[in-house]
């Protein structure tokens, strides 16, 4: 059994270019590839990624941590990045997923932990229902309905098969429907 490599937990598979497979270290090249470029990329993508992470997690503080970590991973591979945005997005959602999974354990005991800084300007039943979804379902929904990605790209970002994406989305929508339209 060989699971597809996901950026959140292992070296990414970056095929064209330097290639990171086979244990090749490209850190040197990454640094050489232009820190100016990276900084421009960072400045341009920081806010979109914080938005994405916030939607997937429901917390701004954690969103920023997750995004910073994802950028660090991108920086590590900067020299061989072919699609830094796609990679970054995948790193963000996967980190959100893992972060969410850790927090899910506390969900039943300490619900307040989930929204330490939520701005409750108005009741938002959909937003609340989102927070009760499995992290992976929530991530898939955000990629689909916020980022506007198609199923194959969601599959890429989450490191799952397309069929899994279909069923993740399907079940998530089903659950939302049940919760807010009884």
């Amino acid at each position, binding site marked *: 059994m060989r699971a597809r490599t996901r950026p959140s937990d292992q070296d990414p598979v970056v095929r064209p270019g330097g290639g990171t497979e*086979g244990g090749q*270290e490209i850190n040197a*090249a990454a640094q050489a590839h*232009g820190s100016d470029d990276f900084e421009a990329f960072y400045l341009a993508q920081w806010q979109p990624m914080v938005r994405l992470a916030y939607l997937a997690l429901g917390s701004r503080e954690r969103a920023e941590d997750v995004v910073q970590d994802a950028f660090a991973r991108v920086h*590590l591979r900067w020299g061989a990045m072919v699609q830094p945005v796609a990679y970054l997005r995948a790193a963000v959602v996967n980190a959100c997923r893992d972060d969410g999974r850790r927090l899910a354990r506390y969900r039943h005991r300490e619900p307040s932990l989930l929204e330490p800084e939520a701005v409750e300007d108005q009741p938002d039943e*959909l937003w609340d229902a989102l927070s009760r979804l499995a992290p992976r379902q929530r991530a898939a929904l955000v990629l689909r309905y916020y980022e506007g990605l*198609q199923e194959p790209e969601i599959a890429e970002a989450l490191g799952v098969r397309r069929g899994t994406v279909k069923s993740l989305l*399907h079940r998530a929508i089903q659950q939302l429907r049940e919760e807010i339209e009884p």
Partner: protein
Amino acid sequence: MSPNAPSASDAPENEPKVFDASGAMDTTVSISGIEGRLADSLGRRASDVDGTRAAPPVARVMDRSRQLGARRQALRGAVSVAAVLVVLALLLVPRTGDRPGGDVAGGSDATGTGGVAGVDGPRGDGAGRAAPNLALASSLQPFGSCDDFLGWVRTEAKKRVGPFGFTSRDSSGSGGGFVEDSFSSGRGGARSDREQSENQSRLSPLDQSQTRYATSPVDEASVSGTNTEEVGVDEPDIIKADPRRVITLLNGVLTTYSLDGVTPRLAGSVKLPTFDSSSMSPVRGGDPSAELSLLLAGDRAVVLSEAYVASGPPPGQADRSSGASSYYGRQVRTTILTGVDLTDLAAPKLTETVHITGSYVSARVVGGKARVVVSSDTATDLPFLYPSISGDKASEDAAVAANQRVIDNAGIERWVPTYRTGSALTTEVLAKPPTPLVDCANARHPTEFAGFGMVSVVSLDVAAGSVTPVDTVGVVATADKVYATPEHLYMSTTRVAAPEYDGTTPGTTVGTVLPGPSTPNPAESVRTAIHKFAVPVSGRPEYRASGELTGVLLNDFALSEHDGVLRAATTHASLYGTTMAESYVTTFREDGGALKQLGQVGGLGRNEQIQSVRFVGTVGYVVTFRQIDPLYTIDLADPVSPKVAGELKLLGYSAYLHPVGPGRLLGIGQDATAQGQTLGTKISLFDVADPATPKELSTTTVPMSSSIVEQDYRAFLWWGPTSLAMVPVRQAVGTDPLVGAIGFRIEADAPAAAEVGRVVNPIMGLWCPPGVGCVVPGGVTCAANGECPPPENPIGDPILRSVVVGDGVLTLSAGGLQASSLATLAPRAWVPNRPSI
């Protein structure tokens, strides 16, 4: 989370229901448009985090990156060992009977050599090892009519449809059996082609071909194009030059320069349509203009690009045009062709725009005629229904039956890509039915099913200024790579064995958890079919023959035709794993409508990753890398029994190989330690006059640097008449870091590549819209009038391309063109691509 318990309202007992996944067309249950509410809610909520805090300093990210790097180093040893064990285990797993559903013909080990563990050393295999039925399985059959087409596609589709549509264990249903690539590919197999094609080595011209025009102070023979794959076949790029002018395409702007002698003068520019409308969104969330490339013939140019584009009018809901929160549910990946009239160089004009549904794969130009390859994932848009209760047999059966009806009701327009003409996709334009791209009579399908997508070869008369697709031929498959000689076009299609629906849906049974992370197909089911077309000077490409082999083409340089023999370099291994198993070079000859395998040599770079391949005449060069770089020379003089002639082991690797004169090969890649850690750009000159004993003659190393040539062969330039090689390099450390290009003189029989000089393009301050102003990287604040002061640490702007014009070299960077002396590379003039503010 636990599986959703079916609610009474959703699914009364014994009354299975189905509903539409998109909520657009509900059959039994009313849908409240929750998807729309969700998109609205997410878009609104996203602004919760806006505007309160700026990005923390980038230094913090870099610190974190260093921590991660250190941790990774510590883990590396252990990981390498594990990777080898995984591969051994995979190789030892029995091959047959482990996949449900139909498998492809010819067995799972079709080449007769692939995947054999523990074979010593490279070896040759003569003819006769190929399974002859493979060529037949992949050979392309014509459809007589649209009825034939529909009959065939419905039969294949109904075999494969399940309760969730074309969902399969391999995601190979709606994807047309394509191979899901990882981050290297924005789409499935097809997208990866172009990106991979930028990382290639392949037989390419010893001198550069370029369309030439009119009289000019510069002799037409003294203008180079950028690097292409094959002599006499032009390719799209971001710069095109002829004796009269230079055209560049950067940041979504097409810029024209007139050539006054050898120094270009800024003439005019035109901005390509941006993707800011609600009907379009960029393919990769990044800068859409990064995707643009340019073809030039006569006074006409065609700009090729890609975007997600609305496939029809908005579905009756409010326009969500506000940037990232747009809901692109009805947008499809689209190839966009934009015509540009360059008759008045000072005022280039956009003429006509054509939107073709499908991903842009590649394009080639011979004699002013362009052949553009587009890969369309046609079946994804079918309005499939889902079961109301996952895992419930009755509900799933009902969904399968409903989905079979969907297939029966899907007309020809669902299966054939279409196009629209018109620069603006207004609701009015979108409301009209699009034009089918391919006539049914010009479409073909492989004998053996290979997916539902369609690969189309579109012809354009660029020189006549037309971007309207004509003479289009289609193949029901998904594009992988494209390779063309002046007479032939080869298209490869890669597929994973697509199982038929066997009545069960994996992982969706009530009471089980959702499926875990994917387990990609074993490598041995990845097969590559190669289809050969004859391309006349004008008119429709004519299908000639097909062949098939196990494994994947390393990149699209991995195909090469020489003396009627097609050579293909493939890797036979998992696409997803951390280790490549083994690579092969296989020879084919067209014979009676089939590409028949002549011979094969394998055992190249076991457990190593292929870095580059190049075929030069009757010799093939393959570079693999794990910790050291074996450069294999492969003797193809007798195509029936190719053999490894020699091998040269070096530290580091060459990512790109270019023939630089008789018996000489230039390699551009990375130097590395004995542990495989890269150290910086290495430019090596090899003596390959005797294939049995390849030798490294000289190397130039630029510590802690990289070259764009590693990713994009078009950035390299070899100018035969003065034996000049130009290699862009970016260095980020040292007291005087080089961000520019190094020129080498490589005379025939010289013992070393001699450095001629270095070119540095100045950085232009970023331009910000007047009245707005902006902050650019490095903390420089631009004034409201758009003027930006020079950065504090001026180094060169990265050089993207080099071309030769007369006795000068032009180097292209984001800000414009630098003109330098061809003989010495001494700077002559800097020509910014916009007037000074």
